[in-house]
């Protein structure tokens, strides 16, 4: 990853000169530049696809102010490494909002991809994927987070998601009673 990043920065200057490129340069919120294959970007991200098609790609680095460099690095990493094995974003984009079918299981390499991420990175990546309209990546990251949530207590979840408990003790007890079945150990 360090290599990728270095490459991105190094290429920044000469890329300006190149007219017809097959890559796009993305700029993170903290100003770092990353390069990703145009084809992969367009295929995996509905947002980038739209930008490319609409000509709003900046050769000097398209500003993605909402995405930090670490997350963007992961996004680029994901695109570059695995673009070829992923179906077009357009094909699966419709499955996100209305789908009631079971979610597609992540593939092995996708598992590994998210497994190595830190907690922060994972949550950042979810947001980045959401922002960029990368349905599959969103799927994979959400899947990972949901896996981590399994078997956790509400307390643990609160901690992880940084949520304040705004219930009273009595209310919690009431819910626990009503939802007793959900609190049984398997």
């Amino acid at each position, binding site marked *: 990853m360090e290599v990728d990043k270095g490459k991105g920065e190094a290429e920044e200057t000469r890329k300006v000169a190149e007219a017809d490129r097959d890559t796009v340069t993305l700029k993170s919120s903290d100003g770092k530049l990353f390069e990703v294959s145009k084809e992969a970007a367009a295929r995996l991200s509905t947002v980038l696809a739209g930008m490319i098609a609409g000509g709003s790609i900046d050769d000097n680095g398209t500003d993605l102010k909402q995405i930090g460099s670490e997350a963007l690095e992961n996004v680029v990493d994901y695109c570059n490494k695995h673009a070829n094995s992923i179906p077009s974003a357009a094909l699966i984009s419709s499955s996100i909002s209305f789908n009631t079918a079971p979610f597609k299981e992540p593939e092995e390499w996708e598992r590994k991809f998210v497994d190595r991420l830190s907690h922060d990175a994972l949550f950042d990546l979810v947001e980045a994927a959401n922002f960029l309209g990368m349905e599959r990546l969103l799927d994979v990251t959400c899947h990972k987070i949901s896996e981590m949530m399994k078997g956790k207590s509400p307390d643990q979840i609160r*901690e992880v998601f940084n949520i304040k408990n705004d*219930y009273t003790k009595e209310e919690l007890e009431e819910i626990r009673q*009503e939802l007793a079945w959900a609190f049984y150990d398997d």
Partner: protein
Amino acid sequence: MDNTTADSTAALHLGMEGGSRHAAAAVAALPDDLIVEILARLSAKSLYRFTCVSRAWRALISDPANRRRFAQTLSGLFVSLPDGPLREMMEAPLKIKTCNDEGEWTPVVSEPLMYKSWQLGFLALPAISDSPSVIAHVPAIADGKGSNRMIPSVLTQQTEWVRVDVIPSNSYTTSAPLAGDWILEQDFGSELGAVEIHPTLFEVTGECLLYSLGFERSDSYLARLGRGFSNLNQNQLGLGCGHHGSSEAFGSDLDFVDGHGGRVMENMDLLFARVGEIAQNQEKSEAQFGVSSKVIEQMMQDQQRMLKMIEANGKAGHRRQESPPSPTLREMVEAPLKIKTCNDEGEWTPVVSEPLMYKSWQLGFLALPAISDSPSVIAHIPAIAGGKGSVTPLPALGLPRLAPVPAPPGTAVAAVLRRVQSSHQGVACLAPTETQTRGFDPVVSPEFHVFQLVQEPNYELSSSETGRWVFKEGDWSGNDMRLTGHMTYFNGFLHFCIISNSGQSCRVSRVRHDAIARRILLSVEELFGRSLFQLLLLKLGLFQPLLTSTSLLLPLRRRSATFTDFPLLTTPWELAGDA
């Protein structure tokens, strides 16, 4: 970078605590739709456990718009009809009749129920014989917010309605949870047993199902609006069975109707508000339901006309004065409740609780106050999540006998059992096979499934979630000749009850449904071993329909039970404690 990754990975393996502090900033900003994305991948158990996390999460989890994406428990469309293989019926093309303004009926052959039901927003019950089918609207497909109320059937003269004729021998319960909150009153069958086919009218609009039984008058109450209103049915379409009442709840709306009469339309504006909504959804309705704009316009005009008419001749006021001095719906709703609860010893304790209106969404219970001195009916509105309720059928107001439904101590589970018809009221009895059971899961319902097993050797049930048939009930052996079997959905499980021919044994199984496998576990021990489970058993005396009706709602604490443990009561809807 690599170090960080390694550390965090380790932390993840240990639990989620490791990264939480850092994650906090980022995660705090996670928008709701992302939270929903994540929650949608959780098992039902985890999901509902996490309602404890925060109010915001609970709201997300219980929001009907999201629920369809979340894990379903044994969700499905369950239809039980006494005659004929269920599956065949469901998969057969439907015979539906529609009626135009001239009163001409046109038969329509539609897709089979299974596919139609969740595709088009309609749930239809195929006819058993040549008679027209039942069609009903599953409102939630349209926009996730179904509701249901009574039609003022005056309007039906000029507008296009779907007509439904129900076979007298039918009795069924349906629920299509994945599609949204939906339940169809199935009283028609028993109502009509001795008489004739009872017309029921459904209005299909963009967002709701309206239907009317042939009451002279009807009252409706919309919980969401906190208001009730009455309808005067000027064209007496039905048989005018004055004692009949029914109620339904859709979404957060509870609609009930009192067949006693004596109440006239008080809140026309409510109707008009609804018409306004319908008009707003006009295009949508057209596209989705093939309701022409002309029909909707017509309907609005009809309502306008009706209002003018009422204003002009003061009919509303006039009628109202004629009304018997029964409390208004609102008064009833706002009055403190008289509820009885029952403990394990079978002792009843009266409880005066808060009025219905407030109680209903605070405690997850909806209770209908008694009209007379009889105990109230209490029912659960599962939407724990403040205000977003779901289906709970409630026994009819205004029946001579209300069903006292126990709220067992220490639990928040209550159930509503349907009344039993008795012949000396001039109503047909339930046919022996037309036993009904209803129950609901306090948690998972809108997915409230109760249905019956009749004397059919094999039953399959269909899940709307998977679109598959999930159960084939053919393994009840051997020595036990099943008199009746019921399934009730409780605590996230589907319970089966079988009572042997000899009355000596009670077999219960439950369905465990997890994300991986939905299997039926026939295991007495498994259920009886878990004392916390509530089991609803309903036995209707099959060959003595007038005499016996026993309902039990009791904690099962023993590893085995026999039928004789459950005293047979001679009055309908008495509660038997754990004898």
